[in-house]
Each structure stands twice: as structure tokens, then as C-alpha cells.
């Protein structure tokens, strides 16, 4: 007979790791979004600088 407390133990651990994992995914996605927006903007400004130099 398995211990009747096992579902509670499983639920406790599952909830804890879901919360930690969920937050980690949120951080990872935020970092990726901000970094990609920054690099896109930097690329755009570098392109504008180059075209301004070409015009001159």
C-alpha cells in the first residue's frame, strides 16, 4: 500500500517547482524581448548613421 500522504508530497513539490520554473521562464522571455528590441534599435541607428555619412 503506498503512503496516502504521497499525493500531498507530490503536490507540494510540483507547486514549488512550477512557481520557480514559471518565474524563470518569465525572466528569460523578458530578457530576450528587451535584448532583441535593443539590438534592433542599435542596428537601426547604425544604419541611419551610415546613410547620413553616405549623403554627405
Amino acid at each position, binding site marked *: 500500500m503506498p503512503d496516502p500522504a504521497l499525493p*500531498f508530497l507530490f503536490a*507540494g*513539490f510540483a507547486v514549488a517547482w512550477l512557481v520557480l520554473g514559471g518565474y524563470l521562464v518569465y525572466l528569460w522571455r523578458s*530578457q530576450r524581448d528587451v535584448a532583441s528590441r535593443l539590438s534592433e*534599435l542599435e542596428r537601426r541607428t547604425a544604419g541611419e548613421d551610415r546613410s547620413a555619412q553616405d549623403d554627405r
Partner: protein
Amino acid sequence: MNTRGSTLPLAALAAVTGALALMFLYAPTEGLQGEVQRIFYIHVPAAWISFLAFFVVAVASVLLLSKRDLRYDRIAAAAAEAGLVFTTIMMTTGPIWGRRVWGVWWVWDARLTSSLVLWLIYVGYLLFRTTTPPGQRRARLSAVIGIVGAVNVPVVYFSVFWWRTLHPLPTVLNPEGQLLPAEMRVTLYLSLLAFLLVFASFVVLRLRIEDTRVRLTALEEALRA
């Protein structure tokens, strides 16, 4: 990710793996509660780390109010967010353990109620930050909320001594001495170290994101000018 940046998360991962191994392979099964007692190795470190997080929020908030440097605001926000994660773990694993051991998910005793208030204060803190435009005003008001929230931490900790509660008294930091067997103590301490490293990794990662966001905002403003 560079080598320096990945050291802390790797150390956290190693400590979490070690702590999980100790929880299930080394720590003995508690005689009275059975297997469900192992939730203790998550619940208690999560509670301690949430207290630490809100202490960091309070210190950074005081520094912000005295020096007006927005770096402290970013540190406080990062610690508050990670602190809310650990408080959520404390607030969910506790009732799961309580349902098995006490027979109820929740009682309105002083420890549980003050913990819920702590959780709500920091939910409010983060909601306030997301709904208010960034700047000195938001930083100052957030700092006030952060400091008020941290005042609740000692109330949560001492509630089991000040009032009669269903929640057990501390087994480690107990004024009557050590109540835990050595194997359980070692497991608890490694779990605490693992959670501490996870907390530090979260804060460092959050700060890195905020630094990138500051650079992004500066670039956007420069382009608009």
C-alpha cells in the same frame, strides 16, 4: 550567456540537485507525519528567503530615500519580485502540508494571516510599480510601500510566540534549543543554500534585464530628440 554570468545559476542548479537528493535519499521519514513532512525542506527555506528578500527591499528602499539613486529602486524591485515568488511557494506548500497534518487547508491563525498580509503587500507593491510611470515619484512611493511591508516580517516571525497559533513553533531557531535530528538539519541547510542561490540568480538576472531596459529607454529618447 558569458562564463561569469552563468556561474551563479549553475551553482544554484547544483545545490538544488544536491538538496533534492538529500530530501529523498538521506533525510529520514518523520515518525508522526510520514512522507508529507518532506515539504518542510521547501516550505521553511522559502519562508526564510522571503524574509531575506523583504529585508533587502527595505534596505534598498531606505538607501533610495536617502540618496535618490534609482539603482536602489531597481534592486528593491528585483528583490521584491523574487521575494513574492518565494512567499508564493511558502503560501502554497503550507496549506498542502496542513491539509494532510491538520485536516484543513487554511485556518485564520496569526502566522497564516500575517503571512497572507505580507504576500498581499508585495503583490500591491508590484502592481503599483506596473501601473505607475517610471521615475523618482514611483521610486519614492514604492520605497515607502516596501518599508511598510518589511515591518510586517517580524510580525510574521514572532506571531507564533505572541499569539496561540495552530502553526508549529520554529524547530531550528527555537529559544529552547535545537529540535531537529542532524540528518534533517543538514538537509534543511542545503535546501536553504539552494534557495539562497536561486534567489541571488533571480535578482542578478532581473537587474540585468532592468539595466538593458534603461539602455533601451535612453536610446529611444535619444532617437526621439
